[in-house]
């Protein structure tokens, strides 16, 4: 495992897989390897796919990937499912819809649990995007957990964000507009063979129309029937047009900078939390303070100040 980074750069799937595991487990070996990998990243188009549960995200990704493969592009897929907050375990089933891709060596799929992160992503996802990018993937697709309203973090990591909806949500679109309806670069109404598709498109378009901010680009609304491969060709074209738009308007680099900002914040947060809650230095003190808060001898704010005071001095 000495030259793990070198083998990842060669695209060796076993080393890619192992480095992802190390990153997920916050292993220092991973942090070290990322130093070699980071300079080699930046080529892959990162596509975020989010949307309501059962909207067909996994099937859509399967079809998108087949379309990219026809063009000869290599694809990395990160499929995120929720980790149980009680057992810490997770059932990761997104691959079920993509198993036909399992033996295609131009495709690498990794399933991940959220491991306590809110927002629809998982903490190590930034590292995993960089690993897949550096391993030679032309496109990296990130599938979030099925979202309700607030799982919008994918926008921080993706160059192009797709929000997938289905016909028949009706007024529900109104209630979710504050969250995921603000992050789309492209809307996809999947399962367009169901009734109510025109209404769904009209409702989404009316939401786009009432947002008064001046935009250089009107967010397109596409319809697909993923399991019949309908509308996929057009969707890939729209995704590529969006990338061209980003490049033309210099938004591409601005968004990438925001991603690195989010990544830096996440690494600091993770390391700081580990330092306070996992290392023996503070463990006893933290437990002691929680006891005191329970007994009303100290309030949570004072306790937090005490811990932060110890770090900052």
């Amino acid at each position, binding site marked *: 495992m000495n030259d793990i980074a070198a083998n990842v750069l060669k695209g060796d*799937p*076993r080393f*890619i*897989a*192992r480095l*992802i*595991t190390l990153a*997920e*487990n*916050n*292993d220092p070996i991973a942090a070290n390897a990322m130093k070699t990998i980071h300079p080699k990243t930046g080529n892959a188009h990162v596509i975020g796919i989010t949307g309501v549960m059962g909207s067909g995200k996994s099937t859509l990704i399967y079809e998108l990937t087949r379309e990219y493969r026809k063009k000869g592009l290599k694809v990395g897929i990160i499929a995120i499912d929720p*980790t*149980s907050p009680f*057992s*810490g*375990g*997770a*059932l*990761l*089933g997104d*691959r*079920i819809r993509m*198993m036909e891709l*399992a*033996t295609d060596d131009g495709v*690498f*799929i*990794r*399933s991940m*649990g959220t*491991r306590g992160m809110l927002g629809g992503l998982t903490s190590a996802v930034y590292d995993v995007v960089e690993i897949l990018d550096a391993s030679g993937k032309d496109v990296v697709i990130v599938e979030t957990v099925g979202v309700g309203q607030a799982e919008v973090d994918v926008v921080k990591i993706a160059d192009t964000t797709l929000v997938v909806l289905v016909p028949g949500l009706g007024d529900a679109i109104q209630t979710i507009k504050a969250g995921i309806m603000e992050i789309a670069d492209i809307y996809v109404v999947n399962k367009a063979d169901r009734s109510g598709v025109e209404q769904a498109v009209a409702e989404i378009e009316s939401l786009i129309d009432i947002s008064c901010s001046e935009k250089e680009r009107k967010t397109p609304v596409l319809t697909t029937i993923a399991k019949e491969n309908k509308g996929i060709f057009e969707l890939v074209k729209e995704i590529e047009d969006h990338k061209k738009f980003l490049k033309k308007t210099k938004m591409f680099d601005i968004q990438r900078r925001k991603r690195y900002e989010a990544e830096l914040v996440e690494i600091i947060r993770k390391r700081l939390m580990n330092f306070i809650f996992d290392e023996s230095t503070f463990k006893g003190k933290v437990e002691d303070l929680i006891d005191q808060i329970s007994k009303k001898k100290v309030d949570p704010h004072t306790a937090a100040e005490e811990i932060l005071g110890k770090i900052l001095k």
Partner: protein
Amino acid sequence: MERKIRVLVAKPGLDGHDRGAKIVARALRDAGMEVIYTGLHQTADMIVETAVQEDVDVIGLSLLSGAHMTLFVDVTRLLKEKGMEDVLVVVGGIIPEDDAPKLKKAGVAGVFGPGTHCDDIVKFIKKNVKK
């Protein structure tokens, strides 16, 4: 540093009975493991490629059609070819008693037939998983 046990639960071959596999998958999740479920009708190639990409510690195979001597052994053979003997292979389904020793010889670590308690599978994995 927390390390989670990652398990691939797969249904090789043609039989469509996946209730057992799903129950085991659920039990392993509840025991704190990350379980990747592939769905039905997998080839040995698909299973081993998935095991590589997902970097799993354990593969759980379920088969009720009688083809286990071929399909389970295909999986352990491919693992050996790729130098992945450290992946723990456990199997379940309808496995005649006489076949269990043969499977173990071929690299299967545990055979769990009907009537097995999920807890016993969890304990077996936690005790025998490498690293």
